[in-house]
């Protein structure tokens, strides 16, 4: 055992330097002034941006729900395929992720633009042009497109483990297809649902690239707000740290609530 503990030392060092120290620094910045004195001014200032928080949570929530609704049947269908086909299908699902994230989002800009491909095609049949880009819908679309694989993957890996005979047993005991879904498959895939929601919701709530590129100026999200404090014109790292800290607390609370829905022995986060 002792020898094994030695092996964990590098990782412990890593965690302290790159996880613990930065978090402490964020907390320190959030609670101090430029001269280093303690203040809660920045934390209380975060309140001004409540509407941005609400908007971000709302868009992330919509994107997460859409991802879940899209991913659930896909994951289920793939998990019931023959083994060798499952691998191919999962590769196709993952394929977009092999491309650069920025590039993918740029592609959507050209598709959705006012003179973009979609409006161009619609124009050929006498429709539009519609305002597609720089809308909340475009931001949600970008989130769904980019984070869908993160929902499919945990759902699939949980569903692939559901024993076929358990599903047969439920049919044998009187379940029609709807009953099989809600009495067996959903409860058994709950760990996948919770971890999928986490993996989509957390990056979606803190994204800034997607909203910047597809949302225009009208869809400022928390991520954009934080970025502006560090890199933008309104340079104020103390406020940025305070916003980050509040966001972390919000995510932590949401995750704790989520975990209440997972069976005791299957907590994933």
């Amino acid at each position, binding site marked *: 055992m002792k020898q094994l503990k030695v092996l964990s030392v590098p990782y412990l060092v890593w965690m302290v330097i790159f996880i613990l120290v930065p978090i402490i620094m964020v907390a320190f910045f959030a609670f101090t002034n430029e001269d280093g004195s303690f203040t809660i001014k920045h934390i209380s200032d975060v309140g001004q941006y409540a509407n941005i928080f609400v908007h971000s949570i709302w868009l992330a929530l919509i994107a997460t729900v859409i991802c879940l609704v899209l991913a659930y049947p896909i994951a289920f269908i793939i998990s019931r395929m023959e083994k060798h086909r499952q691998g191919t299908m999962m590769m196709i699902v993952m394929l977009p992720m092999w491309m650069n994230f920025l590039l993918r989002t740029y592609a959507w800009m050209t598709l959705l633009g006012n003179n973009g491909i979609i409006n161009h095609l619609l124009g050929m049949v006498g429709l539009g042009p519609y305002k597609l880009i720089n809308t909340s819908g475009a931001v949600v679309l970008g989130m769904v497109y980019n984070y869908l694989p993160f929902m499919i993957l945990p759902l699939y890996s949980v569903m692939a483990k559901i*024993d076929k005979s358990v599903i047969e*047993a439920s049919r044998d005991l009187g379940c029609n297809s709807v009953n099989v879904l809600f009495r067996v498959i959903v409860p058994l895939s709950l760990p996948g649902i919770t971890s999928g929601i986490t993996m989509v919701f957390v990056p979606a709530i803190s994204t800034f690239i997607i909203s910047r590129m597809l949302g225009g100026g009208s869809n400022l999200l928390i991520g954009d707000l934080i970025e502006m404090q560090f890199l933008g014109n309104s340079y104020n790292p103390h406020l940025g740290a305070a916003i980050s800290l509040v966001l972390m607390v919000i995510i932590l609370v949401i995750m704790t609530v989520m975990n209440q829905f997972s069976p005791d022995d299957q907590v994933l986060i």
Partner: protein
Amino acid sequence: MENIVSLKNLVVDFEDGERILKNISLDIKDKEFVTFLGPSGCGKTTTLRIIAGFLEPTSGDVFFDGKRINGLPPHKRNVNTVFQRYALFPHLNVYENIAFGLRVKNVSEKEIVKRVGEMLELVNLKGFEKRSVNRLSGGQQQRVAIARALVNHPKVLLLDEPLGALDLKLRKEMQTELRKIQQALELTFVYVTHDQEEALTMSDTVVVMNNGIIQQIGSPTDIYNEPVNAFVADFIGESNIVNGCMPEDCVVEFTGRRFKCVDKGFDPNETVDVVIRPEDVKVVSAEGAKLTGIVESVVFKGVHYEMTVDGVDHKWIIHSTKAEPVGAMIGMDFDPFDIHIMKISEEQ
């Protein structure tokens, strides 16, 4: 007694074109304990799955209580299955596993409490209601699986090698218990196993299958004493099977000698399989014996010794309460009614 399940000319082809069932016809009587017995891949589980509704036959009809039920989904059939590896619901405790079928059918809470209680008593699992099924032993899981199926009061209970994963002692206990439950509840049990001893111990009727064909249907005694062909004889208990021919009625010739037997109705000099059970071989003095051989090995089996004897053209297995020394020359003889003559089966 009425037929509860009738199978008529069932044929099943799998996707790769392999024919799994080749024209199976069978009647199962109400309140009967029927066992499908055969080696793996013989089609016994496939037949069970057709009755359960998980599989549609390529051709042929399934009747339940006189009605044709082809195409009827499993949840509308009045049968329940005990699965090979239990297939319990891992997210539910013992009580909820058993109550599952009743909840699906919206049975009242009062009725559920009563019926699940009865089942827990029947399978000796009182006090385990709240236990997670993942924390049960194999035997306990099997009991839950049986209770979960029986609580729905099916007319027919299908059991797919339910005791396969249990150790020998537990298996024997569960065999007796299952038989008791079947008789107490007066249910039809259709039981699938590859264990011939299990089949003989528990069943009213044994259906021996091989390569998608029913080889023989009969009571355990019939199947053991009067196997219809060499496959059945070999599969049900150990047997000495030798090639022979029938020069005339009630006379059989094998290993170059003629013996009296009780079978007749064969063509003159028809080639046949001769089956003799190891316990029916009589050890006699080598002098003047029709058949002699040298003892190759002796193994103590508890009740009897199992000897391998090297005869001229055949190695004989003999079960006897007396052991002969290895290397000794012994004589062998048979009573006429212990020599079973079988037509050579075309397909085995």
